[in-house]
């Protein structure tokens, strides 16, 4: 029995090392000087810690990293709550407001789940482009606000919402909108937080759509900026890693702080997806 547990720990540590290694490399490389990182032998840790990489990353006019971070922050902080709110509104209406259109609207929404998102980026680009959305913030944000899947999750949640609570609200004179705004929405905080955080992560890390739509450096997100750095002819390695480290810090912090919500969101989206 004892030995079995020891074996489990040995195994789990052996697996944990490669999972943590890339984080170590990001930190080590970001703190090295160009000369040391470019040398031919292996160094476990920088001889002298250098912040030149960070200075170079933010001082590069060709790739405006600070502005790209700002764009990503803006896009993710607008998209996450807004997309979750829109899904919650529709989910509530479909679950709780008995009108004849409910069923066709429901099918209209979930039918879009059949189509894989990334594969149809060209048709979406055609529409957004014709509306003048290339190189605009709305072009980056708006097409990603509509998640049929989140509607489905919210609808399921509101179907289980206690009827007594709603009846009490109705006695107090609340209409459907009041019931949603005053009772249902404030009581769906857990689901809201889970899906909102996942949406934030998704938007922060998105690459293909920002690459397609934000072609001008002014509209680059942090992922596009990093990709540009990576694909340059002469790469400034410490600056490359310093930029990447800055780009993952907000999400790693979010993961450590809000893991409970993230796990819950993953279970919701994963199992039913």
């Amino acid at each position: 029995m004892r030995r079995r547990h020891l074996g489990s720990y040995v195994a789990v540590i052996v697996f944990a090392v490669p999972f943590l290694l890339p984080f170590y490399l990001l930190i080590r490389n970001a703190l090295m000087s160009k000369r040391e990182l470019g040398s031919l032998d292996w160094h476990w840790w920088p001889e002298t810690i250098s912040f030149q990489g960070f200075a170079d990353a933010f001082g590069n006019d060709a790739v405006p990293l600070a502005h790209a971070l700002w764009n990503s922050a803006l896009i993710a902080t607008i998209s996450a709550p807004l997309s979750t709110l829109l899904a919650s509104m529709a989910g509530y209406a479909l679950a709780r407001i008995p009108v004849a259109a409910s069923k066709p609207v429901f099918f209209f929404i979930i039918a879009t789940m059949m189509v894989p998102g990334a594969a149809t980026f060209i048709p979406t680009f055609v529409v957004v482009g014709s509306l003048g959305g290339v190189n605009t913030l709305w072009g980056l944000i708006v097409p990603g606000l509509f998640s049929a899947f989140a509607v489905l999750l919210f609808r399921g949640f509101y179907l289980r919402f206690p009827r007594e609570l709603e009846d009490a609200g109705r006695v107090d004179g609340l209409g459907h909108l009041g019931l949603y705004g005053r009772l249902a929405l404030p009581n769906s905080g857990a689901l809201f937080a889970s899906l909102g955080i996942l949406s934030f992560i998704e938007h922060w890390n998105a690459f293909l759509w920002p690459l397609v739509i934000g072609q001008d450096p002014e509209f680059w997100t942090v992922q596009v900026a990093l990709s540009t750095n990576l694909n340059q002819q002469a790469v400034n390695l410490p600056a490359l890693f310093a930029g990447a480290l800055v780009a993952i810090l907000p999400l790693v912090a979010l993961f450590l702080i809000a893991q409970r919500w993230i796990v819950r969101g993953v279970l919701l989206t994963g199992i039913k997806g």
Partner: protein
Amino acid sequence: MTTTAPARPAAGRSRRPSGRRAARWPAWRAFLLLTLPMVAGLFVFKYVAIGWGFLLSFNDARGTIALGDWNGLDNYRRLLGDPAFTRSLVTILLFTLFIVPVTFALSLGLAVLVNRLRRGRALFRTTFFIPAAVSYVVGALVWKMSLFSGTPSGVANSLAYLLGHDDAIGWVAAVDPPLYWIVLVTVRLWLQTGFYMILFLAGIQQIPAQLYEAARVDGAESEGRLFRHITWPMLRNTSVAVVLLLIINAFQAFDEFYNILASNLSGLGRADGRTPLIYLFQTALGEQNYGAGSAGAFVVTMLIVVFTLLQGRFAGFGRTAEEEG
């Protein structure tokens, strides 16, 4: 999903006293206000987009997104006749065949392993899950420039040196043997394993402990047998969901191929590592050929739909205990 739905609105209506027609309008108004943004958004960015793209795929639309220059099935014919496109389909099929079973096995294995721990379960769960916070771009960057960089001080090359291999290997550039596959598969493995491990872990924790006790009473002592006879069958639904998600995601691979193999618009892309989405990206944004790009989008979409339906067919046989419980 299809047959039971109508019961709900009907039941809701019948609960009210008849003749309250006045109450209908506020309900309609609220319904419209709440669903309109979502419906309008999906209409424009999904229905119109897909409809327009579909029509565009029958047009000669180079440098334009306007309809009018109809050319029938030319785009599809040219696309399927282009070795670069068919090669990209082969590439993504191979990639899917690699990445799906490997990710599946590793995430399931880690879930079982983490679940066996008495202490430190949360710590190790976080360790395996945290790469999910990292973008594919950053993953590709670390893999290409540090872990599998072609210089002797790259991690993989330093390890190879310790094992007695003196020459630095150019991992990303190595085509014969195609070592770049190792780079592509491991980066995705690192990025997504934790996500699926979380799904398996939750599935495992839902299995009633009595099942294991009963099996032990019946003489099934070994870990392997308990896994085969209890854990594995009880995880059936989770497994089906995981495979489905893995296939859909693998088919749409773009980020790591683009960044590791430098498949950007400057045309540096390598034919042997081009996925369908990279091919389409270059067609639509490089050559501005939106007709062919749209046609390709539909070919890829159809492939994904067919694959997921096939998988659903396979998984449909002999459903077991999990959904009853």
